């Protein structure tokens, strides 16, 4: 399958992330979600990165509570016993959710489509980024599939000890993330040592000229279209 260049995907993901922060209205946020959210979630599910999607949706609980505490203003929309949910809370919640969903989608598109070694070469050779940044980012991507595997094992052992499979409360999240971080830090340290012993410090970036393929042009066009729509929506 023909894939876009890693540098194209990197620029695409980075730009969508910036756009997600620039966008102010719901319409603008919807524009950048139309492609990125469904495509990213589809690829994420297909490539076994479900845990990150699940964690995102669990995180929405916290987001909603946050919106309820800090932006619960305007006309009441829903009344649940003593809790009155107002327009401001719903609007704030929707905006932050869409913002994060766009970023998640673009990130999942990026990480499911790049090859780590090609990505390092691309960041170093095409985008002229320092090799340390390129390597750290690439290893982070490589670790995602390992984290996914670890998280599946952790879920199983949590069930048998009477804990929730997926974390919901802050305490759950802490107990879930602790082993993941412990294992992740240990692995990252050793992978770093192994890379140094294989001459990483001697590595010299090989500069390459960017040659865009059709698929790169399509990705850049899609990005341009989203930017254009976003700015049209800014107009009065």
């Amino acid at each position, binding site marked *: 399958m023909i894939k876009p260049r890693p540098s194209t995907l990197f620029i695409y993901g980075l730009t969508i992330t910036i756009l997600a922060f620039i966008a102010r209205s719901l319409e603008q946020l919807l524009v950048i979600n139309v492609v990125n959210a469904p495509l990213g979630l589809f690829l994420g599910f297909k490539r076994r990165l479900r845990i990150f999607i699940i964690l995102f949706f669990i995180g929405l609980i916290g987001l909603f509570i946050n919106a309820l505490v800090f932006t619960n203003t305007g006309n009441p929309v829903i009344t649940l016993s003593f809790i009155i949910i107002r327009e401001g809370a719903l609007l704030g919640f929707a905006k932050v959710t869409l913002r994060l969903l766009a970023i998640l989608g673009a990130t999942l598109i990026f990480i499911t489509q790049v*090859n*780590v*070694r090609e990505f390092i*070469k691309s960041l170093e050779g095409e985008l002229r980024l320092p090799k340390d940044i390129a390597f750290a980012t690439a*290893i982070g991507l*490589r670790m995602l*599939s*390992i984290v996914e*595997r*670890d998280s599946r*094992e*952790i879920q*199983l*052992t*949590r*069930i*048998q*000890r*009477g*804990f929730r499979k997926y974390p919901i409360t802050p305490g759950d999240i*802490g*107990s879930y993330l*602790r*082993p993941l971080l*412990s*294992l992740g830090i*240990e*692995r990252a340290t*050793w*992978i*770093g*040592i*192994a*890379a*140094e*012993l*294989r*001459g*990483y*410090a*001697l*590595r*010299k970036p090989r500069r390459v000229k960017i040659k865009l393929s059709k698929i790169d042009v399509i990705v850049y066009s899609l990005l341009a279209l989203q930017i254009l729509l976003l700015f049209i929506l800014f107009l009065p």
Partner: protein
Amino acid sequence: MNPIMIIVKIKEAGFREGKPVISGIDFTLAPGELLLIVGASGSGKTTLILSLTGVLSNLLNGYTNGEIRLFNVDPLTPEGFSKIPRIVGVVLQDPDKQIAMPTPVDEVAFTLENLGYSDDDIRELTLNSLKHLGLVHKAYSSTENLSGGEKKRLCIAASIVHTPKLLIFDEPTANLDPWGVSETISYIREFKEKGHTIMVIEHKARYFLDLADKLLVIENGKQVLFTGKEQIRRNRDRIVNLLEGYGVDSTTPKLRETRNTGISKGRVTVHVEDLWFKYPLSEEFVLKNVNLKLNGGEVAVIVGPNGSGKTTLLKIIAGFYKPNKGLIKVTGTEPYRIKGRDRAKAVFYVPQEPDYLFVYDSVYKELKASGVREDELKSLLDSISWLKRVLDESPYKLSHGQRRWLTYTIAKLYDPKVILFDEPSAGLDNKLLKGYVEWVRNVSKEGKTVIIATHDVRLVCDVASKTFIMKNGTIEEVPLPKAVEFLEEPVWGSQHQ
């Protein structure tokens, strides 16, 4: 006579000045020699690798006082350290902590790219190296889908592709099935025959004693023996006894006449009949027509190659997955139907990776989570003195051996009828293993059923009351000697050919 090209005289080395982990290490090596470095878990073997490759002082802010020369390069200086990757290839213990790239071809090419090889050379050398190590058909597969043995071979390929003069292997047989062990020994033998200088760090000395030109023994960070091939040959029995005394696995395991386990209490605790299982989205059955019946007090040891379905079977007995077909009952109930903590009271699964089991930030909370009474906990702490000292520590700060012990203790505190262990002896030296064997015997005497999935022949010999061989998802009960032969034959049979 070959000139000495490796000189190591380490007065002291450690991660923090004034707190040495190793000291008094003094040896030399000529080109083409194989040095076997042995010692119990935590004796400082890995720190020695970090020290003599210069990683400790140049990367980890540690220190090494002394003199090291590897083919006239001083790895303790920054200039020397920068030359190390060209002359030394290091294969670390755990492939998951070494493999940085998504496919084998990328992993091997990464080394050559770092060292500045041309694109054409990278392509040619990478494929040759993968071909040599039998991985060319998996060159573009995901590294995540490789077996344990394949991952180890990939690490070897990525470390030797540039033909370094010195090869260092840290616990090369760890976590490998007998076929993986056999392959690794064969490759190391081949590298030696080709004239590479080799250091093998192992606590299973028996695999490499015959290959070694020199032997170095470390205990508590100190060199206690350095001897040559002639001495090893002439005083083999004395040296083997000495190594056993240091907790190093150096003798062929023997079946014990009285294992004092497997005192059946009569009740059937685990009943599996015609069980079939496949993972969702998978076409192939991982378990096929599995039958198993165990009583309270029995210790079943399941052996088999990597990927034969041992772990999946344990997870099904633990109730994590529902079988597609067949019967499974643990203490009379389908385990996947048992909810919440009741499941841990019936059956408890101890994973190979201890960290997966921990949920709290202190050892005390981990122990209390089982609902154990304070007086019971106190009596337990009185029997395991080190546990008392680390009660307030995070489980993740304990040593690997301590973490393993903590998982056994947690399992016992839940007081389950059935305890399942996945590779419980991985990384345990003989001393720690003896402790584990005692532990299993005790819980067996209490009437609990223990099921152990392992490649470790020591466990078969010391604790098994029933032995099973798993192959391609099927299971067969076999007599103990056959299980031992199953594990030993691939290693020794191929070496004697």
